[in-house]
């Protein structure tokens, strides 16, 4: 079944986090929007709810910044789709954003639990 979780348990993505997740997803190779959405949802164990409108705007935004590039292609099951892939600039951004994010979560963990968050460990 697609999404067993109650929608209320899903966490709306913060602006900026979505960008990072998109970049991370694309490290594995080029992908279309629907694939990216599925991938994020699946990898977060269905915790994240990806608002598709926001996703496409984010994709557009990243494309404008030239972090990702896009071109029309054909999916595995022969559907026309717009495929996104990471640019060199995007790769570099991913590294930066990841370390930024880790610093943030570490700080949050310190404040909330008095110790670094588990991901850090």
């Amino acid at each position: 079944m697609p999404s067993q979780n109650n929608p209320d348990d899903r966490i709306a993505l913060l602006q900026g986090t979505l960008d990072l997740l998109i970049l991370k997803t694309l490290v594995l190779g080029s992908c279309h929007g629907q694939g990216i959405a599925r991938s994020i949802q699946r990898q977060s164990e269905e915790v994240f709810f990806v608002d598709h409108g926001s996703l496409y705007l984010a994709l557009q935004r990243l494309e404008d910044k030239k972090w990702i590039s896009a071109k029309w292609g054909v999916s595995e099951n022969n559907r026309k789709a717009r495929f996104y892939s990471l640019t060199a600039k995007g790769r570099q951004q991913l590294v930066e954003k990841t370390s930024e994010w880790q610093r943030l979560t570490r700080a949050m963990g310190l404040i909330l639990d008095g110790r670094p968050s588990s991901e850090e460990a």
Partner: protein
Amino acid sequence: MFRRRRSADDFTEEIKSHLALEADELQSEGLSEEEARRRARVEFGNAQTAQERFHLRSRIVWFDNLLHDIKFAIRQLIRNPGFASVAIVTLALGIAANSTIFSWINSTLLDPIPGIAHTSDMITIMRGERSEHPTPPFSYLDFADLRDSTRTLSGLLAYHDEYMAITGSDKPERVYGAVVSSNYFEVLGVRPILGRSLESTAPNERLGTAEAVLGYGLWQKRFGADPSIIGKAIQINLHPYTIVGIAPEGFQGCKSGLRSDLWIPLGMDPQVWGGDRIKYRDALWLNVLGKLKPGVDHHQAENELNILMQGLAERFPDAHKGPNMISSDPLWRSPFGVNVYLYGTLPILSALALLLLLLACANVANLLLVRSVTRRRELAIRLSMGASRRRLVLQLMVENALIALAGGGLALLLTTWTAHGLSAFLPPTTLPLTLNGSVDRTVLVVTIIISLLTAAVSGILPALRASSLAPVSALKDEALNISGGIHKSRLAGGLVVGQIALSMLLLVCAGLFVRSLQSEQNSDPGFDPNHVFLAYFDLGPMGYSRAQGIEFDRQMLVRLKSLPGVQSVTLGDFAPLSFSIRTDFIQPEGYVPGKNESMEVDRGVAGPEYLRTVRTALLAGRDFTDSDDASARPVSIVNKALADRYWPGQDPLGKRLQVAGHWTTVVGVAANGKYRRLVYDAAPLVLIPMLQSYRSGQILYVRVAGDPLSYASSVERTVHGLNADLPLFNETTLAANMRLGNAFERIEAAFAGSFGLLALILAAIGVYGVVAYATKQRTHEIGIRMAIGAGKRDIFRQVLGRGLRLAGFGLVLGLMISFALTRYLHGMLYGVGTADWLTFVIVAILLCVITLIACFVPARRAASVDPMQALRTE
């Protein structure tokens, strides 16, 4: 950024593909095709919203809104052509007044010497007391010493303007030339477009080289823009010169508003002038222009030059008996050239134009207020549909901006025509005046800025008012018309009071200027300008020697005198009130000048019967006769002002008077007259006879019976009987010629007057608009009043009373403002005080009458309301 990076269709396509992919995946997870498609769609959320958000992001929203607002505003204005055209024309008049004056300021005060490189670093230098018509400050030797020793100036140039003639062809052409120092073009930063400048004469500046740089206009006109002209010879005043360069287009010399046609080295002055003043330290004939070194201001330069001049005066005391004090000015208010007459006038005109524009703004604001009431429903609907107040105000402001820009466009069209109006006030003259405005980029930009400011000033209050309504009550309560207009009409009333006050101020200024001009024109110039024909000619370029010229003059006078209708004939090297009189240094017998006292007075060279011909009263002694020639003893005639100043209480007749180094005997005393401007007090004047002090450039005066210009052909025939080739130019009358002497007062009066008239019309429209509108709004109320017994008279009186009350407030306010502000006109008025009660009273009465008329129509309409009708229509 306005360009969309990716089409909306492409985006839609992507969303479609997403839905298809999602459906495929769901289907593969076991859902039916239909269910999968439905789930995919649900999962995606609102595809429409996503597309909309894409659209908002991909374009700059405000730009879209603006485009929409502009389209909407244009539709609104087209739907209301009456309102739109009245508002546009009103603003156009106000803006055109400003852009016209600005176009003049732009091409005179802001660009005093066109075509030079560093206008703001340049200074002009004057010697002695500040004057509107200073004489050249330096001798050549003093100039050269100052130029070589100054440390505050990076360059000091000298020039002297002189009429010259290009000879060598059948008809000599009179041109306005300048003899200039060798560094002239370099200091100005003017590079010839062809050939070179005159710097090669630097080593022998005093001797000079026979070289000439031609002005662009002369090169175009006389030499057909021939580029091979460089190196060729031309004849100037019968002497050969080599053309070495062509000045760039637009450059016209160093005096504001005056054009030079060609430039030759200083050392050639003896050939042009006939004397060798270049050798003498006490011959003051050179005007100078200095270029400040970086970081030096003109006061520092002035101080240094004064110290240097002091040194020169100590080393050469005999050559520096006159005033040696030096003062400098930035170019925009240079006392050399026309700016000296404009830098006081134009800012005042500009202020008056601004007042007029404010009035126009008030009128348009009133129109907008009225309109916003009729648009209340529309605005209320838009508010209740969710438009923000900011959006509404923005929308209304866009409309105002469109009106103002349309007005500005119309004003620019008007300005392309009125910019040339400055020269319309100048009579035909031999002076090479180039006084004109033009519409260039600066004028365009300033006009647009003025227009937008206009939109803001006239529109912001009405827009805020219009958008501040509570939508529910506005929609629900149509009866608002009765009670709701109250605070709006208070604003409108305030606007009308302000309008009347402003127009009072404008009219008072106009009245003062007109009265000043009147008293100037009614003043006695000291001669009778009627029935005198004038013609200018120059014998020099025709090759006449001094003796031949004097002989020509004698014969011409005899022949002209015998023409029927001619009463008397004379000659002069000047004509009164046309900026043509020159000065000379005098030494009256028995008078000891104070230290550094200037002994420079107005000096005219005049032919036999001069006083008789211009009808200046002879107080004692005699007029010049044709026997006052080179063989007789040198004589002079002085005016009363000169006699009173230097020989108070003594009989001037028979006194000896040195003029320009030559002793003369005073044979006549003339009554005082005005020779420069009518507004000046009579100044000391000395006349010397043409037959003794010959000048080749002369003006012929012919006093006739009847219309002077009807004698033009017979005078021409007579003169050409003596020399068929002699050109007579600027044939005019003495009366017309002297209009140059008060051109600037006429400009002030004409503009202040027309601004005043426009102000009156605008005020009348304003009062009418407000009273008429308020009356119309109260039709229902008037109907009720009449129904319960009010008479037509009561209603009439009430409406009229309201209008007059506004007018009364406005007049009192206007009087206070006028009294406070007109004193700034002091110094620009002649024969009338700045608090001239007659002007104030006339203006007040005029405004009262106009307000009465403006209120009369709506009052009558109100009084004729049929109560039944009025009550039924609501």
